[in-house]
């Protein structure tokens, strides 16, 4: 993500009035409409729940804008999020993230008014992809994760790229520290590179089959993932906001993280 945004022409020159134009004739387009506000998000599903979590730091370069700017939102509820049944997290360019969230929220609300029933997570996931792709040539600079409960009541999680490519997954990390968190999830949730001891030698060695994890384990894993990410990534920290969706509704949990 960062590397994509780093082409900011402002990053290495300050616009003094006496700066000489390097390429007289063709004028450079010097307004760059994106920035990276850092932070990371993470989602994991279980048998009958889904967890979506994100740190609450907002950054601009080396500055900390604020220590509490939530990146995980409830979709389809009223002002206080009452009645929501879908979660969305957005990380990358915060202004685009907020615009995307509000657009999806409006779509889900209109769906309920027009069809008299809440939008399913599957339908919402497809719609989000369409919204993102609709700005294919001036993208929302965000990585989004959508979570909820599917038609069978199982935890559902969808991961997106900025232009709308998506898939349903068991778990997904996105944002600044995704490269730190995702490998941990691969190993701990999808049990990659984990084998049943003594099941055989070489190719006969049997891989452990991933199974849905209980809620307590998932919450602890999320906390561990973030405390580790905070240790190594400067754009992650301050607080951990965790939203858990079950058949009983959405629960919000906040944990302080290191503020350094």
């Amino acid at each position, binding site marked *: 993500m960062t590397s994509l945004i780093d082409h900011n022409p402002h990053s290495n020159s300050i616009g003094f009035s006496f700066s000489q134009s390097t390429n007289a004739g063709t004028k450079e387009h010097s307004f760059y409409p994106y920035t990276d506000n850092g932070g990371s998000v993470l989602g994991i599903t279980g048998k009958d729940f889904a967890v979506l979590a994100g740190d609450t730091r907002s950054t601009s370069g080396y500055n900390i804008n604020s220590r509490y700017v939530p990146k995980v939102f409830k979709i389809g509820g*009223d*002002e*206080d999020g*009452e*009645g929501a049944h879908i979660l969305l997290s957005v990380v990358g360019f915060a202004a685009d993230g907020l615009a995307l969230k*509000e657009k999806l929220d*409006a779509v889900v*609300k*209109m769906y309920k*008014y027009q069809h008299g029933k809440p939008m399913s997570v599957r339908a919402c996931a497809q719609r989000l992809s369409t919204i993102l792709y609709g700005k294919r040539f001036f993208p929302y600079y965000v990585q989004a994760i959508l979570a909820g409960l599917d038609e069978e009541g199982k935890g559902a999680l969808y991961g997106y790229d900025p232009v709308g490519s998506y898939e349903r997954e068991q778990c997904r990390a996105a944002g600044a520290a995704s490269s730190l968190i995702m490998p941990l999830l691969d190993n701990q949730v999808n049990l990659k590179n984990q084998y049943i001891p003594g099941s055989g030698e070489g190719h006969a060695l049997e891989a452990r089959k991933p199974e849905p994890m209980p809620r307590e384990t998932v919450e602890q894993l999320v906390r561990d993932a973030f405390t580790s990410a905070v240790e190594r990534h400067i754009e992650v920290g301050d607080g951990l906001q965790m939203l858990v969706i079950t058949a009983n509704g959405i629960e919000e949990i906040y944990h302080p993280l290191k503020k350094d």
Partner: protein
Amino acid sequence: MFRNNYDNDAVTFSPQGRIFQVEYAQEAVKQGSVVVGLVNKTHAVLVGLKRNAEELSSYQKKIIEVDSHMGIAIAGLASDARVLSNYMKQQCLGSRMTYGRAMPVDRIVTQIADRAQTNTQQYGKRPYGVGLLVAGVDEAGPHLFEFQPSGMTQEMVACAIGARSQMARTYLERNLDQLNDSSRDELITHGLRALKETLSQDKELTVDNTSVGVVGLKHETGKVESFKLYEGQQLLPLLEALERSDVGETKEGETMEVDS
């Protein structure tokens, strides 16, 4: 047969200073089945009598949620009401998006009134064939507005429009002093009793033909109690409360008879 020369369009006055097309539109409202609206200090209630065009058809929707703080009850052409309510929904979402604020009730009422008025002054247009009762809460508390195809709007404490609505209005006028200090549930019962007054001899209120919408401010917090539509089985407790209050009433009547 007598032919009226001044009703070919909605923009021509008759020599008596009337616009017949607008009056015809108001007739359409009187043909619609009755809806009742009333407010007290904390809540606004809409009550409607649903009709089915024939035995085999479903009942026509009478109460529509516009936003979490607002709903409308309709009498007249349901399709015109749908178009109007879609416009209102869009405007309410727009207000939440651009200002982060719920649309003030008087403002949206003025907006639809302006649209309705335009239809009475531009050639080739047709007035809306529907009357509305708009119930909602905003920072100034609960409100009830009446809207007519002419573009006329009025804020009301209690109101009824549609077929045989005079009976309901008479009931509301008689019980006006009780409305303001009533509780949320008492207000609903008053609404249902006003509605019951309009019924012809062989009819009664059932879970199929009744619709109730409530919006208000929560007693404890003063926050918005989201618009709630009661239909079908959800109506049972409300109809039971109505029955109980009726029994109380007739008992009083009986004792009076005995006394005399």
